C-alpha cells in the first residue's frame, strides 16, 4: 500500500524541461543532486511543498513527462519523496524511465477531483486509489509485470540474469 498527500496539481503536457532544466543535467552523476532543482523554473515552490509532507503525490493532466528523455526528471521527482504520480496519460519514454526507477505512475481517465492536501492510499495489487479525504475510490488497470517492476524498483535483476546467460554462452563457445 502506498500512502501520501497530494502536494502538487499540474495541468496537461508537463515536460521534462519543466521538471528538471537542462543546465543541471551535467553537473552531477549522483541522482540525489537533482532533488534541489526539481521544477526550478516551472514551479520553484514544489520542493518546499514536498518537505511539508511525509510522502508526496503529484496529480497531473494528460501527457505528463513529455519531451526530453532525461531520466534525471524521474530522479528529481523521486528524490523529493514523491511516492506516486497520478495523471491522465504519460508518453512512453517517461513511463519507461519511471518504471526503471520504481517511481509509480498511475493512469486515471479523470484527475480533476483531486485537491491539494488530499490523503490518498494506493493499492497496486487491487488497482485502486482511495481518496481518504473525500471518501472516494477509483480503479486503474496496470499489467501485472509492470506492477512487479514498479514494486521491485526496476528490472535490473532480470537484466543481470540475461547478461549472465550471454556470458555463460560465450564462455561455452570458447
Amino acid at each position, binding site marked *: 500500500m502506498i500512502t501520501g498527500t497530494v502536494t502538487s496539481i499540474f*495541468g*496537461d*503536457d508537463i*515536460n521534462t*524541461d*519543466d521538471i528538471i*532544466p*537542462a*543546465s543541471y*543535467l*551535467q*553537473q*552531477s*552523476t549522483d541522482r540525489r543532486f537533482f532533488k534541489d532543482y526539481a521544477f526550478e*523554473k*516551472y514551479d520553484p515552490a514544489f520542493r518546499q511543498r514536498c518537505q511539508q509532507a511525509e510522502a508526496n503525490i503529484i496529480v497531473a493532466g*494528460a*501527457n505528463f513527462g*513529455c*519531451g*526530453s*528523455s*532525461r*531520466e534525471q526528471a*524521474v530522479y528529481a521527482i523521486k528524490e523529493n519523496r514523491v511516492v506516486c504520480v497520478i495523471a491522465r*496519460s504519460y*508518453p*512512453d*519514454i517517461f513511463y*519507461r*524511465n519511471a518504471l*526503471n*526507477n520504481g517511481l509509480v505512475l498511475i493512469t486515471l481517465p479523470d484527475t480533476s477531483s483531486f485537491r491539494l492536501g488530499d490523503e490518498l492510499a494506493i493499492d497496486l495489487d487491487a488497482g485502486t486509489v482511495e481518496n481518504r479525504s473525500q471518501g472516494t475510490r477509483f480503479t486503474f488497470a496496470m499489467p501485472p*509485470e*509492470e506492477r512487479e*517492476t514498479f514494486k521491485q524498483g*526496476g*528490472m*535490473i535483476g*532480470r*537484466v*543481470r540474469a*540475461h*547478461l*549472465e546467460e*550471454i*556470458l*555463460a554462452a*560465450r*564462455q561455452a563457445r570458447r
Partner: protein
Amino acid sequence: MGQTMVEKIVSRHVGRPVYAGEKISRLPITKLFFNDVIGPPAIKGFLENFSDLFAKYGLTPQVFDPQRVFFIPDHSVPAFAIAIAEGIKLMQAFAKERGIAMYKEGDGIEHVVLIEDGHIVPWDIVLGTDSHTDTNGALGALAFGVGTTEAMYAMATGHLYDFVVPESIRFELSGALPTGVYAKDLILYLIGTMGAGGCSKRVAEFTGEGVRSLSMDARTTICNMAVEMSARTGIMAYDEVLADYLKDRARWPVEPIASDPDATYARTVHVDLSALEPMVAFPHKPANVTPISQVQEMIARSQREPTPDFCPVEDDTITDAFLGSCTNARYEDLVIGAQVLRGHKVHPDVNLIVIPASRKVYERAMDEGILQVFIKAGANVESSNCGPCFGSHMGVLSSKSKMISTSNRNYKGRMGSPEARIFLASPATVVASAIEGRLADPRKYLT
C-alpha cells in the same frame, strides 16, 4: 496479414511474425549511441551494476558489441564547465579501452553524424540517449530515445526489455511544398493539428508521393519532430532518394523496406503539401502553431486566453534568432538561410547565431561561401554542437529575450530564462525574421 514497417523490423529481429500490441520481452537492438549528458552516468551505472558478473567469467566489462556503440559529445561542447569536461574524458577513456567509436567535440550532433557517416541503415533498431533519436527513422530504421537505465542495460546485453510493438499512424502526404515552405513547416503544421499528445504510444509513418519529393535533409527534419506530438518515433520507407543517399555512404548492408499495402494502421491522416504556408510555433509549446499570415491574430489570442504553456506575447518583435540544432542545421538548411540573407544585414537589435549541425556541414558551407554570407551579414557562427537549443551555453536567453529558432522545443525556460519567449520556425522564416527584427514571412525574399 500485412505488416507495418515497425512490425516487419521487430519481426525480423525476434525471428517470428509479430503485430502491434504484442509485448517482446527481449528485443535485440543493432545500434546504440550516447551523448555527453547521459554517457557519463550510463558508464558509471554499467560498471556499478555489471562489473561483478563480468569478473565472475574472468572478463573485463565490455559493451555488447563495440562496433555498434557510438559516443558523441555534442550538447555542451566545447566543454564550458569542469564537470562536463570530466564527463567527456570519462567517455573517451571508456571508449578507447573498448574499441568504441568516440566522436570529437565539434564533429556534430548525434542525430546528424551517424546518419552522415553511413552508420544508420534500413531495418536497424537504434537506441539513443536522447528523445530526438526518432530522426533516424528517416532512413527506414526503428529508432527510440531511451533514458539512462535502459541505455545502460542495452550497453550490457544489446537488448531493450518489455517492448510493446506500437501501432502506427499513417501520414499520407500528397502534392509538393510551395516556394518558401519547407519540411519544418509541414511538421509544425502536423504537431499543431495533432496536439502535443496526438501521436502518443504510436509511431508516425510518413508516406505517399509527397515524401518522394523530399530530400533526406528534409525527411530528417520531419522525423526529428515526431516526438513533439508524442510519437514513439517517426519512420519512412526506402525509396530512390534514400538509395541514392546510402550509395557509397552506408557502412552496413542496405536492404529496402516498406509497409505492406494491407498493413493495419491506427489511423490515416491526409496532408496536401501544396496547401501549406510558413508556420510559427508560439511559446511555450511546439503545438502552439499558427500560419505566418495569422501571427497577429495569434498574438491577440495569446493575450486574451493565456495558459501556462501559451503565454501572452506582446508583439511580433524578436531579439534573438538561432539557425541550428538537430532539426534544421544540415547543408540544405544553411543554403536556404543564406539564400534569404544574401544582400541583407541582420537587424541591429537581433543576435543571430548560426551553428552547422556537423563538422562536415560546416566545412562544405565554408567551401561554398555559405558561412561567409552569415558572417558578413553580422551573424555569430559557432562550431558544431547543440548550442542554445540545450539552454546552457552559446546564447542563453535573458528574461527580455524573444527568440525565433529552427530547433524543436520552445518549452518555458528551455533556452534560458523562463520569462524568455521562444518561437519555432523554418530556417527561411528564422533568417527573414532576423533581418526584419520581427516575425517575418520569408517568401518575399525568395521570388
